[in-house]
């Protein structure tokens, strides 16, 4: 549980962080809440030679109401997402999802930006932002770039962020009329065996699935079935369409597909469909 030796840079500003990333390239990693990165380093599965700590950049910790969407700073802790009044009012799915992450310690350290940038397909927030059709704002040496959530996740622990880019803001639309997060776990603090996020926003229903592929995925067949008038129960039957989940000690691929269907149905019903 002791990482390989590394250099440590504490960024005093966002610009400093970007400069440090540009200087060290692939060798460097941003350190936010550290709750995904540090465990990997302690197991020596991750061996960055430079850590750029952005943990104290208060400019990245905020929630703003921006007319048609809300903006959440990348460094906002899970606990704050869970309890923020703007999030609770305008994007209750995110608050509910944040409240289901790990345990209180994890929620007080982990950040929404870290969770998205880490892109673990078993993590909760990526699926929620995807179901909400969110937009991610990244800043690099060349300035800001907006990335739709649907184009952000590239593969297992892989995103379309460039090595010198910092994820600064997550935007999700206002106008939620129903939502649900169905997280299937054995123990309350576990990662999802399968998770289903449902968001009804401005007349559209977004459904995404957690831990059934190498990235979080949209349940497109379910969304289409609903759009063409299918009942929640019938639409949910499509949830495993095209999925080829992996098996592990907790679930076979077949069980994961089954759970995707059951949880989608329950999620749709809870979201008022």
């Amino acid at each position: 549980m002791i990482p390989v030796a590394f250099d440590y840079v504490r960024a005093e500003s966002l610009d400093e962080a970007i400069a440090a990333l540009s200087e060290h390239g692939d060798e460097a990693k941003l350190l936010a809440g550290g709750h995904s990165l540090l465990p990997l380093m302690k197991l020596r599965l991750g061996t960055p030679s430079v850590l750029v700590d952005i943990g104290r950049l208060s400019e990245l910790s905020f929630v703003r109401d921006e007319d048609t969407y809300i903006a959440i700073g990348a460094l906002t802790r899970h606990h704050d997402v869970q309890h923020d009044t703007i999030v609770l009012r305008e994007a209750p799915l995110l608050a509910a999802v944040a409240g289901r992450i790990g345990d209180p310690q994890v929620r007080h350290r982990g950040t929404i930006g870290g969770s998205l940038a880490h892109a673990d397909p078993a993590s909760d927030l990526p699926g929620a932002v995807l179901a909400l059709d969110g937009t991610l704002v990244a800043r690099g040496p060349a300035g800001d770039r907006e990335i739709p959530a649907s184009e952000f996740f590239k593969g297992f622990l892989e995103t379309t962020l460039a090595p010198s880019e910092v994820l600064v803001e997550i935007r999700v639309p206002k106008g939620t009329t129903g939502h649900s997060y169905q997280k299937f776990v054995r123990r309350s603090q576990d990662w999802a065996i399968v998770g289903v996020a449902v968001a009804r926003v401005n007349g559209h229903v977004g459904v995404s699935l957690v831990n059934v592929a190498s990235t979080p995925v949209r349940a497109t067949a379910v969304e289409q079935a609903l759009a063409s008038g299918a009942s929640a129960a019938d639409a949910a039957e499509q949830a495993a369409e095209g999925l080829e989940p992996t098996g592990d000690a907790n679930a076979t691929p077949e069980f994961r597909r089954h759970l995707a269907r059951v949880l989608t149905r329950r999620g749709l019903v809870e979201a008022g469909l």
Partner: protein
Amino acid sequence: MSILGNRVLRKEDQKFLTTGGTYVEDVPLEGAVHIVYVRSPMAHARIRSIETSEALESPGVVAVFTAQDIDLDPMPPGAPFANRAMTRPWLADGVVRFVGDMVAAVVADTRERAVDGAELVFVDYETLTPVVDASTAADNPTLVHEDAGTNVVLRLPDDFVSAGIEQVAAEVDLFEGCDVVIRQRMVNQRVAPCPLEVRASAAKWEDGHLTQWSTTQAPHSVKDTLVQLFELQPDQVRVIAPDVGGGFGAKIGGYPEELFVAWVSRRIDRPARWVETRSESMMTLGHGRGQIQEAELGGTRDGKLLGYKLTITQDAGAYPNFGAFLPVMTRLMLTGVYDITKTEFSSCSVATNTNPTVAYRGAGRPEATAAIERMVDIFADEIGMDPAELRRKNLIGKECFPFTTAVGTTYDIGDYEQALDRVLEAAGYAELREEQRQRRDSGDTKQMGIGLSTYVEVTNGIPGSEFGAVEVLADGKARVRTGTSPHGQGHVTAWAMLVADQLGIPVEDVEVIHGDTDEVPRGVGTFGSKSLQSGGVAVHQAAERVVEKAKKLVADLLEANPNDIELDKENRRFHVAGTPSVTKSWAELVEASGDAGLSAEVDFAAPGPTFPFGAHIVVAEVDTETGHVSLERIIAVDDAGRLMNPLIAEGQVHGGLAQGVAQALMEEMCYDDQGNPITANLADYAFVSAAELPSFETHPMETPTPINPLGAKGIGESGTIGSTPAVQNAVVDALSHLGVRHVDMPTTPIRVWSAIKEAKGDR
């Protein structure tokens, strides 16, 4: 009024809840080197070569040792009767036998540098086929230990018969007169003990004297081993077990990792220390359980159980330790609380390329209870009788004690029917069954299960005595020295209560010393729920003797007859009966006693073990769509004889229930078919947490044992023994109307879901 029987708060908790106590890792040791073991990533392989030169050049590395450097005899096998060819070497000698087997020891000036150095030890392995599945290990042509010529470690009863320990049992027609005989294969899975404090050890030599710090349940046995290994005199070795953060049976003996630290320290002439990581602990601290059970139970249609047969394959792991011996304990408790007159038992303990198994909370008895309690439920289902009713019909009656079972175990005392009645009443059993019926009728996706278990277990089962001493100090306070070695059990409070009860000296003024072989001359330690009924009784009797001595002294001083001397415990003063104005205090007596002092030592050997019992009911809700089980209620009636401190007893029951639930519902140490552990951290291994547990409804019951003067039996393991089958039975009970007859532990969602599917004939 005696303090015994009161809910006295634990004195030690202030420390544990604030500073966290002093554990081996906290012991300062100037100039100590740190050891990191290079462990095998393979379950079974031949070592072609070990390259250590790069590690030796790594900054801070002081030495790297491999098998060829060691000039110390290996520790004898931890399993009685084990084949000597299965002895564990200090470091793997030519062959590695499980993932985690130690190959080299890297010694450096800091732990960080030792970890870095360990990465630079390169081992060239030639892969061998691993023996992973215990059920086929006995006949597997691949041998874990070539030289042993077999994978079999211990066969019962055969090996005991050929050793002359027992006779060949007479042939019986086991199921004669039975209308129904049911059969079931059950897996009592391997679990990882997961004490909060992982293993740690430190050693220092001074002028030929060794001081060894160890996180152990039995410091004196660690000392004996060290004396033997290093060929020293007993007064040359001191073993200290400071605060110990849990053991659950897995920390009874000394492990090679720990004792090797002393060898390293001597070899390089510097203090040395070692502490393992959590993953290391989960892979290499001894595992618990690990039985495959084939059971048959026969009886009549009206519910009289007549014959029971249990055949066990016990997974002993790569180097047979106490785990190989667990079936002996299982056999001892074979028929549980039932009067079943005909039995047959056989077992085969086998070596496999996995981590060795050891004692774990209950050690062989939970396995016995799990088997019989599951079988009784299946039998009830088969003949259509309520499982509570079937149990009642077969319980050993309270008038029958002492009672000798068909396997020859003599139970001290019990009232099983009362325990059953109490738990049924506390649970509101009839209403629960009614609610269950309604849920079944409504076809709800969430079904309700009601699980019962009536158990009896054996505590203080290993013959021998335990040491206890009481001394009154010059300031009128008292000091206890005990051979028990608490690691969570609250002896500091409980033993102080025993002294307070006799001497009147308040609990806060009684110091309890344990876990230091220089301070405590003899001791056995703490395991097998033995401490109160052995070491506690010793302290109790020593306190009685101190009072006797004091009375004699007072009689001398006041020129009276010792029989007329009274101790006014409230005021802590002695006086002659009838003249309470002339008194002597403890401090005055200590002064008057001169060099002799006022103390007593007792080695108490109980005339036999005791048999705590109880009855548990678990109410579970099972989601039949997802297989998820949530526990609604746990109602536990536990009888451990006279309760000295019901608060501490309740704490033991709480922990035991949680651990028992964990085995039934959550935990399993898994290996893949190549022998790789796949649950070697607390993310993958489903260690139970408070969030998965309902509030416990505990109901103490007190049937004092005649075996010892305190009337006390053990309570440390009861919760674990009773609750596991109650949970498992509840899960199956929730599904029995769907045709499900058995679900192996842990009853995970996938297992429950698969069982329902199979019952429906989907597969």
